[in-house]
Every structure is written in C-alpha cells, then in structure tokens.
C-alpha cells in the first residue's frame, strides 16, 4: 500500500496517471490490452464521491454564498450557481473533457479527440494510480465534470449583488474554456506542463482554488464595488444558511479529496482523515484568533476557518499526516484571517464574499504547505530522497504559472464580456435587488 501511495507522490498529481492511462486504454483495448482489473468497490466509491462533489455545489456552495448576501439578492446567487453548474456540464461533455483529458500530447491542452465524448462507451476504462487497476471512464468523466463545475461557481462570491446575469454566464463560458480546461490539463494530465514539473496537487489546490481565487480578485476590480460598500449595512441575510452551506461543503469535500485517490483504499482513507483534522485545526485557529483579538468567536469566523482549512488541505491531503494537517489548517486560517480582515480593508476592493481571501490565499498556503508537511519528518509520506526545498521551488512555479495564466485569461474575458453585455446592472436595479430585477422573483414571502 505504501508503495502505491509513494507512486502517487512521485506522480505528483491526483489524476495524472489516470488520464495518461485512459488514452492508453483507449488506444489499445481493441488489440492486445494489458490485463486490467476493475473493482466494484472502486467504481461504487467513485460514483458516490462524484455525487458528494455535486452536493458541495448544489446546495452547498449556493447556500454558503447565498446566506452571506442581502435577502434581495438571494435568488440571484442561487441562480448563478445553478446555471453555471448546468452550463459547464453541457460544455464538459461537448468539449471540456476533450480539451482537458482528450489524450493529446500537448503540455497545454487535451486536444479535440474526445469532442462530444467521441469513442467513450460503457466499456471504456480510465486508469487509477495503481498499475492495471481501472474504473469505468464514465465515472472519471463525471467525477472530473463536477470539479469543472464548482471552480467557476466559486468565483461568484466576488461579484454578487451587482453583476448582470448574462455577464456571469458569458464570463464563465470563456473562463472555463481558456483558464480551467488548460490548467486542469497542465496539472493533472501526464503530458501537462505542471505535471511534468512534478508539482503535487492531490485534489486541486491550484486548478480549483488558486484559479478561482485569482479570477475573483480580477473580478472584484473589473466589476467594481457594490453601491454603498463601506457605508450601508450589508450583513449576511442568513448566517444559518451560510453555516449549513459550509457544513455541506465539508461533507461533500470528502468526495473531492478522498475521491481524488480514484480507489477506495488506504490512500483515500489518509486523504479523508486529513480532510477532517486540517479542517478542525483551521476552525479552532480562526475561533481562537477572534476570541483573542475581538473577545468573541463568531459563527462566520468558524465557517470561514472551516473553508480555509479545506482549501489548504486540498493539494496536500494525499501526502501529509493527520497531525501535520492540523497545523497546516491552522496556519491557513491565521493567514486568511489577516487577509480578509486587514489586508482587504486596506486595499479597498470589494471581493464581496472573500473568494480570493479564502480560496486564493488558502490555496497558496496549501500549495506551499504541501511541500513542507509531505516530508516524513513532519508526518508526511515522503521518504528519504525528498527535499522540502526542492519541492517548494516546484510548488512555487506551479502557483505562479497558475496565477499568471488565470489572471490574463480573466482580465481578457471580463473585457470582452463588458464590451458585449456590460458587467453591472443599473444603480436602481442594484438598490431594488437582483432577485426582482434579473429573475422576477423574491426569495421570501409570508
């Protein structure tokens, strides 16, 4: 088992071998395929993991974000998250899967071989990290699809309460096409550029969180502040929903992290226990910090720490130990805390729900912390020939490349969308609230 896990580590990314092997299996199955085994335990586990990631988005993320806005904008948030999910699902089977994992040897994208899932049948297999062990390719497609859906949905938090609905959809289409699919290929495909560097990103710290966080930072500058920002009370309309959403994110995140192991074995179990303890450490850290600095630990603080911990452990879950995870989660909480309560206020941009402050910053802490806590000396599974510093350099490269690529795509995408649709609703519409103005409904009646 350790062997297997070490191999994962060498591979350095959660789905890297997988995609390579898919291509392989595809090519060779008709002829003399190497003997593969499919275990129903893996297949069943991965299907449930996929469902758990959907649960993170709907209703999890929708509620987490929705609770934080004013009641008059509740439905707009729910609707944006829902529509992004639906649109990216269709895009995924049409061209997203192919662009990400289509089997091309390019380091930048997956090519066009699997447009419309061409050639995929119930008999198609996708490799896991264990040589010869496969799962149905449909499972791999569906699992990866949920990752492609949640990432742009995370960005929503940056521009809530003021953006045009059409602009959201248009931006997301451009963004997944030019930012998400290429970066997923780069990080997780065996031919991908960052994969080649040896970056460790077990379940998507760069591809999902840093990526979404940077897009959110760009969004908050491009879309501008909400009317009345800093003057009006914009308190969460339902911290209850936010807490429920955060809890669902935690529950679903086990699909995300343990599922990224692709097999139901001890590797997944390690990812699972780390996803527990890192989060617990992060919750406690944020609450302690608030207790000391403000005299009161808030529910929103605990929920924020919870998400920060989950974000930070995402790239690290497969290679660190459960005690190291507590420390990693706690560090992420502390840094994110100062970011959202000090740095953001001084920079005065309106990343309304702190997507950058938590997913971007937490993702970076996680990516770098992975290099540190993966070392056996700190409880990780990386053995003798592992150098924290060497890995750290690789992680930094991966982070910087993701940031730059994503920032450029995000800026260009927003400029295009602004030119065609405009980004914001009118001031009056903003005062009335997006629910009535953009969707013709109100979230609550008697």
């Amino acid at each position: 088992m350790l062997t297997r896990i070490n191999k994962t580590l060498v591979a350095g990314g959660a789905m890297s071998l997988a995609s390579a092997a898919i291509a392989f299996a595809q090519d060779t199955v008709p002829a003399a395929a190497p003997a593969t085994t499919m275990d129903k335990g893996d297949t069943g586990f991965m299907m449930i993991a996929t469902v758990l990631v959907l649960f993170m988005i709907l209703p999890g993320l929708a509620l987490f974000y929705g609770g934080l806005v004013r009641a008059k904008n509740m439905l707009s948030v729910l609707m944006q998250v829902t529509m992004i999910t639906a649109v990216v699902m269709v895009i995924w089977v049409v061209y997203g899967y192919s662009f990400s994992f289509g089997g091309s040897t390019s380091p930048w994208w997956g090519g066009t071989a699997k447009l419309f899932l061409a050639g995929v049948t119930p008999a198609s297999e996708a490799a896991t990290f264990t040589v010869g062990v496969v799962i149905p390719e449909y499972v791999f497609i569906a699992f990866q699809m949920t990752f492609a859906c949640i990432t742009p949905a995370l960005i929503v938090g940056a521009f809530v309460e003021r953006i045009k609905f059409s602009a959201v959809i248009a931006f997301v289409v451009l963004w997944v096409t030019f930012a998400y699919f290429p970066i997923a290929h780069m990080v997780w495909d065996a031919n991908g550029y960052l994969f080649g560097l040896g970056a460790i990103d077990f379940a998507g710290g760069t591809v999902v969180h840093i990526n979404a966080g940077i897009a959110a930072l760009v969004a908050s500058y491009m879309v501008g502040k909400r009317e009345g920002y800093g003057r009006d009370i914009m308190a969460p309309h339902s911290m209850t929903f936010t807490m429920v959403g955060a809890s669902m994110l935690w529950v679903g995140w086990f699909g995300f992290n343990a599922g990224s192991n692709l097999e139901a074995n001890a590797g997944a179990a390690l990812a699972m226990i780390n996803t527990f303890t890192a989060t617990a450490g992060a919750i406690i850290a944020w609450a302690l910090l608030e207790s000391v600095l403000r005299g009161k630990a808030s529910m929103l603080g605990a929920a924020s720490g919870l998400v920060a911990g989950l974000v930070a452990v995402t790239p690290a879950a497969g290679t660190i130990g459960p005690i190291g995870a507590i420390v990693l989660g706690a560090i992420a909480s502390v840094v994110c805390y100062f970011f959202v309560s000090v740095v953001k206020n001084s920079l005065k941009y309106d990343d309304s729900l702190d997507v950058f402050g938590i997913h971007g910053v937490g993702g970076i802490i996680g990516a770098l912390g992975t290099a540190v806590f993966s070392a056996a000396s700190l409880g990780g599974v990386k053995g003798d020939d592992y150098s924290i510093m060497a890995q750290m350099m690789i992680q930094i490269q991966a982070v910087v490349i993701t940031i730059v690529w994503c920032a450029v795509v995000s800026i260009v995408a927003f400029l295009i969308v602004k030119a065609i649709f405009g980004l914001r609703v009118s001031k009056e519409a903003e005062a009335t609230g997006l629910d009535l103005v953009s969707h013709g409904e109100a979230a609550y009646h008697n």
Partner: protein
Amino acid sequence: MKIVMAVIKPFKLDEVREALTSLGIEGLTVTEVKGYGRQKGHTEIYRGAEYAVAFLPKLKIEVAVSSAMADKAVEAIAAAAKTGQIGDGKIFVFSIEHVVRSRTGETNADAL
C-alpha cells in the same frame, strides 16, 4: 377617546398586557419596531466588515381608551414597562375623534 401609544422593550409585552387587562382594557395592537434613542446599539462584525447597529428591537403598543382611562393606562404601562435601565421607552397620548368596530358598526365608546 385617546390612543395611548407606547414603545417598550420586547420582553415586557406580557407584563404590560396584564397591567392593561387588570384595568379592564380588553384590546390592543402591537407592532414590531426598531428604536433609536439614548440606549446605544451594538456592533456586529462579519469577517472584515464592522457594522454599528444603532436600531434596537422594540415593540410599539397602541391602545385606544376612553379619555377617562388614558391617564391610568399610561401609568399602568409606565409601571409595567420600567426596568430602570436606559431604553425602557416612551409613551405618547393623542386624541382620536372616532372609533368604529367593523364587525358591528358600533362606534366610539361602544366600539372599544
């Protein structure tokens, strides 16, 4: 006839109602309101955003009484609503010219 309109602390409602019914007053209307006054509000913090909430939850009670009863009603409310802490609220009295009970069409004193 008068309307006695009082702003009180929410948890005092039952005491105020009992004080009034013990005077024989059998009806009143209550509204949830937010009050701003000498009693200071509180601060809520949501991550980096700190909001000073100046308005406090209060209840407004409106009770229509005969002119003769008005002073007693005011006294009863004032006594029942009092905690001695700032923010106990205020009582306002004004005249009404006409009262009708919709169900019966009775007017004025009969309608109370």
